[in-house]
């Protein structure tokens, strides 16, 4: 999982979303189609072309107060329409660590 934090050229090969961390508490958030953020991946705006991705990212990055480190992340869209993270890194960001936490939540 090459860190996506330094995305230079924007080129997407499949459905993608924009994700970031919320500034005040750091939780994982996704950019919605209503120019807002949500902690749920199901609320995320899906982009399918590089131009759309670029536009969504630009709009997200512009919210420097609300979010930190916005970048484009791949997703998978299941037949049911359910959105799934497109790689292990994003899976971990959404679902949490793959191990048992030392103190159960």
């Amino acid at each position, binding site marked *: 999982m090459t860190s996506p934090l330094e995305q230079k050229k924007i080129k997407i090969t499949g459905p993608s979303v924009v994700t970031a961390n919320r500034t*005040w508490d750091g939780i994982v958030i996704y950019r919605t189609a209503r120019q807002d953020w949500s902690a749920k991946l199901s609320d995320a705006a899906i982009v399918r072309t590089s131009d759309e991705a670029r536009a969504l990212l630009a709009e997200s990055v512009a919210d420097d107060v609300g979010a930190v480190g916005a970048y484009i992340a791949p997703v998978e869209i299941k037949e049911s329409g359910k959105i799934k993270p497109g790689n292990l890194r994003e899976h971990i960001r959404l679902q949490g660590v793959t191990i048992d936490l030392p103190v159960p939540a």
Partner: protein
Amino acid sequence: MYAYDELDRTLINERVEEFRDQVKRRLSGELTEDEFKMLRLQNGVYLQLHAYMFRIAIPYGTLSSEQLRRLAHVARRYDRGYGHFTTRQNIQFNWIKLAELPDALGDLAEVGIHAMQTSGNNTRNVTSDQWAGVAPGEIEDPRIWSELIRQYTTLHPEFSFLPRKFKFAITASPHDRAAIKIHDIGLRLHRNAEGETGFEVLVGGGLGRTPFIGKTIKPFVHGRDLLSYVEAILRVYNQYGRRDNIYKARIKILVHELGIDKFAKEVEDEWQEMRDSDTALTLDDAMIEDIRSRFTYPAYEKLPHTPEELKKAAHDPLFERWRKNSVSTHKVQGYAIVTLSLKPVGGPPGDATADQMDALADLADKYSFGEIRVGHEQNLALPHVAKRDLPALWNALDKIGLATPNVNLVSDIIACPGLDYCSLANARSIPIAQELTRRFANHETADLIGRLHINISGCINACGHHHVGHIGILGVEKNGEEFYQITIGGRADENAELGALIGPAVPYGEVADVVEDIVEAYLALRARPDELFVDTVKRLGVEPFRERVYATR
């Protein structure tokens, strides 16, 4: 223990207030993330995958029970009830909220703990031997010098924006437990022919993308000149270290590109200039004495070398197993240094829960004069335990899960947080470590194998020091899948060496098998039962291992 005085405490409090103001300006939008990022890094705040991560300094690895309790409090109040001890005598919390950080810092400041310069391109937490002050055969307590350097490097007006991060480590023992050869500056305290104490100064060690073992830049720098000599090195680095490429910005690259002789000459010229004009950095005996006087040592009793309690407990094989690998010789007769494994079978290396921290703080009060140590192997230690108390302590530690008898054995694994937490990771580290501890859970087998250090990093930044693991495991990415490169023969001590690659990278599911095969190859290849893994690799080279491990793959 080092007792902070009013001046130290004032500075820490002033730093908390400054950071509180910086966070406020960030949250209100007065500071952009670009501007704030460096400010938060200078105070140990990273943004990781799930949340902010907060790294707190434990200078030279010494903690009081009061401080440990406060760390437990922060874990509970501001985080998720646990913390992670790193390979650089820091503790990290993984789930902290930026808005609450100033309060957490304020709580820590009350007991003299801070997070200053635990990340960012400045001088980092000064690390030292976790057995400082209690190890037999030590020249003197290296923490006196560590503390002098800690103060000197804290909020340095000239060196807070270096080309890249800069790490010091100090040792005063013949056996190096502080890994000084893999630090930007490594200091080895020793005596010269005239009987004066001073430092062998090493420079340009470091792991990461381009690993180097540090080189000696000056065989002897007198203690009184330590700060001016360090300033000369930092000034040369600040001016000439590369700033065009983050991967070439560490001092090791400058030293490598100039060559150690040329670099040493630059430093020498600078130092001579400073010494003529500027004596403010010269330490006089009174100043050193002042710092020394604030390290207090317990009032040790006169105790027998082998107390009855110990003789009795020796009949218990479980106690004996733990004692053999966890208890080390103390400089004072009748006392021992007890290492506490933070590597339980199936657990994440280096993690401790708030409850464990609290319980351990109580045990430290009862059995170790209220003092705890943190080592770069991600284990803790109680530095002053009376030997007669060892059986009772062992029982108590066992109850809180801190008596795993695997110190320095194959399941005493050093691992970075990896892809489960870290935003820079290629691959996971913790589950690999957990699987390995399960494979080697049998203590008889582990005893048979003997001393063997496995180190795991989730990416080339090498926080798990994989290059210097006897077996090193590095997470890489291949087509979106987790793969791992495996090296053997590295070591981090006074004979530091970088490991050599044993073969092609293997996928996640095969790592534990490969490691088992490597260990089996070692058992077959070693000349004698007491030839350590690293020594076998040194004697035979990588080839025989490669043949055995990869022949059937």
